Each structure stands twice: as C-alpha cells, then as structure tokens.
C-alpha cells in the first residue's frame, strides 16, 4: 500500500530526528551555564508557574503575592524530588520555580537544569541565618535559596514504650531492643535515609562511599526488617499516631503536624538519636528555561521577608532558615522547633545528604537487597 510505504521511512526519519535532538540536548552538560537573568528588584515579567510539594505553602500567600505584584500565580505539585527532576531536566516544563531538596540541587546544577540566580535582585538574602549561606550542596547559594529545613530522626509513642528508653537508633537496629516492639516499627522507604540511619548507628558517615561500610549497614537493615511493620515514607507519622507503630523513622515537620493534631500530643516525642542523623534543607530554585525568571526572582525575594518567611513556617510546621522570621513564629511552634534536646547528639552530629555520584546506585541496590 502506498500510504504505508511512505509511513515506514517517515517514521524512521522522525525517530532519527528526535534521537539526534535528544543527543544534542545532552551535550549541554556541566554546571549551570550562562549569565543570571538581568532583573531588577521587584521586577515581574509575567505570570508565575510554581512547581512545589503538596501543602508546602499556603495558597493564600500565593494570592497575596499575586495581588501585590499584579501577576497570576499557579501552583502544581509533585510528590518526590525524583519525579520532579526528569521533568525539569527534559526541558519545556513551563515552570518558573521549583522546590528541590539539597542533594537534588547538586544534581540539577550539574545537569544544567537550573539557572544561576541574580543575587542583586534578591537583597533579602541578607535575612538568612549565617549557617544557611554557604552549604555544601550549593556554596554561596548560586542557584538555590533555602526554603525550609528540618531533620530526620525518630518519633516514638512514649506512652506505649515507657519513658525510660534510650534515644538511640538501637531501638530499631539492636535486635534485643527491637524485638520488644516487633511488628510496630517503621523505617523510611528511602535508600539514602534508611541506610544513612544504619550507617549513623554504626558510627559511619551517611555519605560514605565505602563498599564495606555500606554492606555492614545493609546487613543491619536486613536484620531489622524482621521486626518491622513497614518501610513507609509518606505515612510513617500517621501509622504512629494511629497506633499501628510505636517507633517511627521520620521527618521532623511531618511528625510535629501529627502530634499537634493528635488527641494527646504529650504521648509522642520526636528526636534525633544520639548517634546523629540527617539535616535536610529544601530550597527554591529557577529552572534553566523558566519563561518568567524576573517574576521568579521577585517571588524568592518576597518569600525571604520576615513576614512571609514566618507565614511559611506557621503554616507547614517546618523550620525556617530565615533569621528575620524567627520573631514572628507562633509560640507553640517555637518550643517545638528550637528545643535543643531534639538533637540528642548536638548539631555536630547532623549531616547533610550529599549525592555520591556513581555510588548512588550502590545505595539503592544495597537497600533493595536488605529489604529482601
């Protein structure tokens, strides 16, 4: 048939074109290239499209920004860094702002998927706490600005396990202790976080690239699996408060939200065990092909004001990197968030997760092996 005879080579041609284009795309590897967008403070160049985690910012705040600057702000949501990254890196996503976690910033930066920030257009950077101005994943905040931060630790139902427990990862990884709560423990379903917890218990770094250390951690998780109810990231907090688990590996903000809404909040405690844990920082950044970079810069600057930085934390219960905002936080939150006993081993015991390059696949493989 004549139609089909054209179709085949035409399809092949299209395939070649697209594949060639795909190949071409990858040649733009390397650090975020190009000059920062030339934007004035408070300048806008059109409506804003924000790509964020669900329930991470109050929609009314977005409306407020929209009113103040005369732009429409739309927000779409994603549920993981790993789902967001390919969408942004592939290009033509249409988004002006994204909220990647610390380790993901490194990845986006190296893939050229985020653009360098014009720091002159973001004078409120000065509001950041000192410790957030020069972090490993993005020294000098060249492509990202800290958004919210928190820790990953352990939450327990103190009413159920008794007040005399040792604030250690051993509750999960020491078979003697874990067997007392068999079937009522949960770990995060995240290779880096969970292997990281095991590594911390063993006294190693969460960013180790040593095969031996990783294998030790793997064996530890494999043994712990016996007493686990589940590996769960999204519902760890709810399982705890529902009574399905009494010990849960989880994120600070998630836990606080659940505790505050629970019937008897004092039953529960969250802490970073004495061996240490992970401090994570979520950031806000601008994709390399953002259609409205100036509006994006203005938004970031606006978010860094004391008023709106505080609004963020008061709404989502995570910690703020904004020094100026600290004074405007809700009181009960302040107690929760700034209590030093939360980090049993002191802030030195906290580590940031750093992308380990080629070794990443080792982490995910080890985790899968440990899970069985």
């Amino acid at each position, binding site marked *: *048939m004549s139609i089909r005879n054209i179709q085949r080579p035409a399809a092949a041609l299209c395939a070649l074109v697209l594949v060639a284009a795909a*190949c071409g795309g990858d040649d733009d*590897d390397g650090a975020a290239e190009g000059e920062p967008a030339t934007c004035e403070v408070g300048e806008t160049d059109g409506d804003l499209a924000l790509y964020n985690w669900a329930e991470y910012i109050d929609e009314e705040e977005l409306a407020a920004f929209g009113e103040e600057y005369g732009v429409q702000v739309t927000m779409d949501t994603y549920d993981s860094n*790993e789902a967001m990254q390919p969408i942004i890196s592939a290009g033509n996503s249409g988004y002006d702002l994204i909220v990647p976690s610390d380790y993901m910033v490194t990845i986006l930066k190296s893939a050229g998927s985020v653009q360098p920030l014009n720091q002159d257009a973001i004078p409120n950077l000065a509001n950041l706490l000192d410790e957030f101005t020069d972090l490993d994943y993005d020294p000098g905040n060249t492509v990202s600005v800290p958004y919210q931060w928190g820790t990953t630790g352990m939450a327990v139902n103190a009413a159920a396990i008794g007040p005399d427990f040792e604030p250690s990862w051993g509750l999960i990884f020491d078979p003697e202790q874990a067997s007392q709560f068999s079937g009522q423990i949960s770990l995060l*379903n995240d290779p880096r976080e969970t292997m990281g917890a095991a590594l911390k218990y063993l006294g190693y770094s969460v960013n180790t690239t040593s095969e031996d250390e990783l294998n030790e951690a793997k064996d530890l998780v494999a043994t712990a699996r016996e007493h*686990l109810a*589940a590996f769960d990231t999204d519902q760890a907090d709810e399982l705890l408060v529902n009574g399905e688990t009494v010990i849960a590996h989880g994120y600070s903000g998630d836990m606080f939200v659940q505790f505050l809404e629970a019937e008897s909040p004092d039953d529960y405690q969250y802490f970073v065990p004495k061996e240490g844990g992970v401090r994570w920082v979520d950031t806000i950044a601008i994709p390399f092909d953002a259609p409205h970079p100036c509006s994006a810069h203005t938004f970031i600057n606006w978010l860094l004001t004391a008023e709106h930085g505080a609004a963020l934390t008061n709404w989502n219960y995570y910690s703020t990197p904004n020094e100026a905002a600290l004074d405007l936080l809700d009181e009960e939150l302040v107690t929760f968030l700034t209590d030093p006993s939360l980090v049993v081993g002191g802030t030195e015991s906290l580590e940031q997760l750093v992308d380990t390059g080629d070794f990443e696949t080792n982490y995910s493989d080890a985790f*899968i092996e440990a899970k069985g």
Partner: protein
Amino acid sequence: MTVLEDANDGAALRADAEALVATPEFERAAARAESRRGFLLALPAYAYLVLFFALPLVIVFVYSFATRNQFGGTDLSGWNVDAYRTLGDPIVRNILLRSLWLATLTTVICLVLGYPFAYYLATRTPTVRNLMLVFVMIPFWANFLVRNYAWRVLLGRDGLVSDATELVGLGPREFLFTNTAVMIGLVYGFLPFMILPLYASIERIDGALLEASRDLYASGWQTFLKVLLPLSRPGVVAGSILVFVPSLGAYVTPEILGGAKTTLLGSYIVTQFLTARNWPVGAALSFVLMAIMGAAMIVYFRNEGRNL
C-alpha cells in the same frame, strides 16, 4: 415485454453477471478492496500509535544502550549492552520470579472469582445486567490510591477485618503488611479487568449450545468444561492478559499494603528510573520484561490458532 421474455432476459443478465463475478481477476480485485478497507479502518489507530507510542518507545530503546553519567543523567555517546547485563544479577532474578509468581496467583484468583460472576451477570435480563455492570465499575471511579488506603484501614490493627475475625472466633488478626494483604489489594484492583472481557465474551455465546449439551445428558460440570469454557476462551484470554500484565508491574499496592518489605519488578524498575536515576538499566529491564510478555503472548496465541 412478456413475462416469459422478461424471465429469459433476467436469466441472460444473471448468466452474464455470474460470468463476470466468477473470473479470478474480479475475485482478486474484491479481495484487494477488502484489504484496503481493512487497512483504512486500522489506519487512524495505527498512525496514532506509531506517532505517539512507537516513536517515543524507540527513543527509550536507544537509551537502554547508553550509560548513566555521574549525576544520573544519560550519556548517549558510546553504545553498550551493560544495562542488559544486570539481568544476570541474582537480585534481579529473585525479583522477577517473585513477581511472576504473584501475578500468576492474582490472575488465577481473579479468574476463579470473576468467571462465575461474569456468567451470572451475562445471564440476567438486559436491564439488570447493565445496572450490575455499572455497579461493578463504580468502585473503580474512586481514586486508586484512596482505595488502597481504605484497605489499609480495613486490614489494620483495629480494622473491620480484624473485628470480623474476632467475631468468628479466630481472634484479632491483622493482615496489614503481609503478603496476603498485597494479594487482596491486587485482586481488588484488577477484578473488573477480568470481569469485563469475560462478560462481553460470555454474553455472546449462543445459549442454545449450552442447552443442547444438557439435553444430551452432559452434567453441569461437563457442560461448563467442554462447552462454556472453550466458547468463552477469548474472554478468558483477554481478561487474563489485562490482569496478569499490570500485576507484574504493580508497585503501589505492594508498597501501601505490603509495607514495601518485598521488592517486586514494578518497584525495581521505578527505583532504577527515579531513585537510582539509572535510565539505561530501567529502560533495559522494561524491554526485557516486555519481550518476555510479548513472547509468552505469541506462544499462547499460536497455540490457539489465532492470528498473532
């Protein structure tokens, strides 16, 4: 003209027509016309799938021969089959076998539950039938995730299932985070995919054949095995494919109801693409999986004498 002359002319005309139609050229032309018609019918779907499916698939196929660069991007320079070599990994083999087993079990259970149901459905009056069918589909218009989480509540520590087993005297049994829970979740998720094609196929069967079988003194069981079942084969095959295949790739249910304690193929492939950011391996595994399933289907259909 007289009637007789009319009839004679008619006969002559008919003879001429027959002579025309009986020629091999005419037959060939007719066959070609049929073939063209068939092609044109298929064309819209064919063209659509070539552009919006086959083409993207080729892109990913190319990726399966690439390598993962340091930060999880894909390096398309230099082709290799390293990604395919991961199949030799014992972890991957384990995962594959486990997933095959689970998918088979799910399909069988769906068949056992779904067939009698589809038969019952097909033998109701049209009004009742339609209503029942709609009521089968309605649960599936509730969000998939929400349904899974509802099962979590049902199977949990204080859930209804636990209360039910207590009532029956088995004591409070919590099924959550066990393999049974995963099974329940998978069967729940795929049952209508089995019921629909089965129903469509059974409904079409000529009831007289079944009655004839009974008239000829076959037992109910024999009628089922030797008449009904073979006649409903297309539905059984379609339903089995629609259940087996997605079960093989399922990962949400095993995570939510199984506590992510065992890794299945679906999760593994997702992990490769998203968490490990190893697209070449993710792509390679997907193609291997598809090849296996494709081969199995070809073998199955050939045995059936169908046209694949």
